[in-house]
């Protein structure tokens, strides 16, 4: 058995809130497989891993596991079911823009054709594992979709499994840990052994006793010699935010502007590690667990659905008529975004579809109660930042710490004036990134301009030197000729 210990977290999350969790809505029903839908949608630029290019053409027949999209980051997305590419066209996407984007549409043909990768044979090195993660399309399945291989740097001390799942309503990770525990543990062990990581920490909120029990049982059965440090966190939002989790479990504060990797810590979602385990066996990501929940769904539950399944198909799987819903929230109630076109297909980062009706009163003026500052887990002053952003002063907001905001929306949840603070911060952070990008381009332009000026100056000097040399040579020759003439005379 693998060695492990369970300890209660001795640190307290700064700020944070205790929202109603509503998790039993979806955990009370068993997790089921979704039958293959009529069509699958794969957005070329929005499948995670950056903008991509299509590797297939209309009319191609694909197997389950055939590469169909290659992203700029290298990540390859595969067809989640065997079928035929019936179209490559602009199609609704699962994205906060609620826009259309170039997508590959596949019609599954019901065959079990598979085109998987060769299983990796232990022992393998880190580069082999990175290549495998790229080929198998492994992204952070927790919601951010960051290409996992980019986190795997040498010299990492600790792997944290982010099993907190602090967002209300979400139970996809909880479900995965109950039914796919061994894959998660195996993925974590394989990754740790490859990168020579010493400790694996599991950060889990204390409202998941079933998942904890499953993990304990799996560890008892495991033959791995990794050490697992299970940290029980108080149920408080947002303890599952990567930076907050690193602080809670290890006491390490990840500095502003750097990633946890730079502090020697890798944070992965349980689903990512389970997917990695299967990728080592040759199976790319083709399915994921999605929580279908919310009071507006007739039978909420967790499902295992092919990537690309249209949202409408999943709503129907809960015996609910999609036409009865105006919009559905992708992700949880705190950080999710509404999607209105249910033809859009789920992506690797779609962990939850939440349907419910909530009345939000209109925004009132800020009364400076400071509630937002009290709950901010990053200890920012959200009211100050929002004043700056509303006034159009991005620089001021950045000075107040905008770039450290994790967009957890705890401030939104407690604001008595219902000010959409987190929306402002999201916009501000986008603008700040854009501004930083412009700054970088300007710096590069300056460097090229100065390099060009130096080059032109150098060329001019060289030509001047050559001219002077030529002139001297000519003068010399003339002088000689003159002397020769004088001598002969």
């Amino acid at each position, binding site marked *: 058995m693998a060695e492990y210990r369970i300890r209660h977290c001795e640190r307290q999350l700064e700020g944070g809130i205790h929202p109603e969790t509503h998790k039993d809505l979806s955990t009370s029903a068993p997790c089921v497989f979704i039958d293959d839908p009529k069509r699958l949608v794969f957005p070329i630029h929005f499948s995670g891993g950056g903008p991509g290019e299509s590797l297939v053409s209309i009319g191609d027949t694909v197997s389950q596991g055939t590469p169909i999209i290659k992203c700029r980051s290298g990540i390859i997305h595969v067809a989640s079911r065997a079928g035929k590419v019936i179209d490559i066209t602009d199609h609704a996407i699962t994205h906060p823009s609620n826009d259309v984007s170039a997508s590959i549409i596949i019609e599954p043909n019901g065959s079990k054709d598979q085109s998987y990768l060769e299983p990796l044979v232990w022992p393998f090195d880190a580069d082999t594992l990175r290549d495998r993660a790229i080929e198998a399309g492994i992204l952070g399945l927790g919601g951010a979709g960051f290409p996992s291989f980019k986190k795997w740097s040498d010299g990492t001390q600790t792997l944290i499994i982010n099993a907190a799942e602090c967002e209300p309503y979400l139970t996809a990770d909880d479900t995965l840990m109950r039914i796919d525990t061994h894959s998660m543990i195996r993925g974590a062990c394989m990754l740790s052994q490859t990168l020579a990581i010493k400790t694996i920490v599991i950060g889990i909120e204390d409202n998941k006793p079933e998942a904890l029990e499953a993990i304990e049982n799996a560890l008892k059965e495991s033959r791995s010699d990794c050490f697992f440090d299970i940290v029980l966190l108080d149920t408080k939002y947002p303890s599952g935010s990567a930076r907050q989790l690193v602080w809670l479990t290890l006491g390490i504060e990840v500095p502003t502007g750097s990633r946890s990797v730079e502090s020697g810590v890798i944070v992965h979602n349980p689903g990512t590690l389970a997917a990695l385990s299967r990728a080592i066996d040759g199976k790319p990501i083709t399915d994921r667990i999605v929580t279908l929940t919310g009071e507006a769904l007739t039978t909420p539950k967790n499902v295992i659905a092919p990537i690309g399944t249209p949202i409408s198909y999943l709503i129907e799987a809960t015996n609910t008529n999609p036409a009865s819903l105006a919009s559905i929230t992708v992700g949880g109630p705190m950080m999710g975004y509404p999607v209105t076109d249910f033809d859009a297909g789920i992506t690797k980062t779609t962990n939850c579809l939440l349907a419910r009706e909530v009345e939000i009163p209109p925004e009132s003026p800020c009364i400076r109660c400071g509630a937002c500052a009290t709950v901010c887990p990053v200890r920012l002053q959200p009211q100050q930042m929002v004043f700056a952003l509303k006034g159009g002063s991005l620089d001021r907001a950045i000075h107040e710490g905008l770039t450290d905001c994790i967009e957890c929306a705890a401030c939104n949840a407690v604001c008595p004036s219902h000010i959409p603070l987190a929306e402002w911060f999201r916009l501000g952070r986008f603008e700040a990134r854009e501004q930083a990008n412009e700054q970088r381009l300007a710096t590069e332009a300056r460097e090229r*301009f100065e390099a060009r000026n130096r080059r032109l100056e150098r060329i001019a000097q060289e030509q001047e030197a050559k001219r002077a040399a030529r002139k001297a040579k000519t003068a010399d020759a003339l002088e000689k000729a003159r002397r020769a003439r004088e001598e002969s005379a």
Partner: protein
Amino acid sequence: MTEALWTIGSGVIGLSVVGLVGGALLQYASKAFKVDGNPLVDSIDALLPQTQCGQCGHPGCKPYAEAIANGEPINRCPPGGQETVDRLANLLGVDSLPLDADETTADQDLVAVIIEEECIGCTKCIQACPVDAIVGAAKLMHTVIVDDCTGCDLCVDPCPVDCIDMVPRPKAPDYWMPDRPEIISSDRFGQIGMQHG
């Protein structure tokens, strides 16, 4: 009497020594920590957009930064837009001015594109480009490195066959910017009740 002289003398000598030591230190510091160039020019240059377009009447951003440091008006940079004027005003502690440009040229993010079928390979645009963003060789087709182009349009006039267009800078295919959250929809972040008790 001697005591008084002694007191005064020791004071004079003591303070002289302090003065000399301090003077020597200052002399040393002024040599060792000498700043080359005007640091204000660099601060101003950092705020300018580095398009090197010359629309301000100077051959590049750095020369304009030097001119501003010498008292030239701060509102002559159309690519920077009003935002840059405001930042310069903030840096220099002066009142902001309205941008000295007509609305059409101000703050448009453009890049040059060479119509490659029509390019005759004369290299005139390559020589005009202040940031080396055009590649090509004599009698061979040229092309613009879009990511490096600052949109200064200095290459447009020298082209003898008018095959250079200025077009809006292309966005990445996954570019997206959220709307301003002025209107409150029922779909927003953090819509959740709190636990009681």
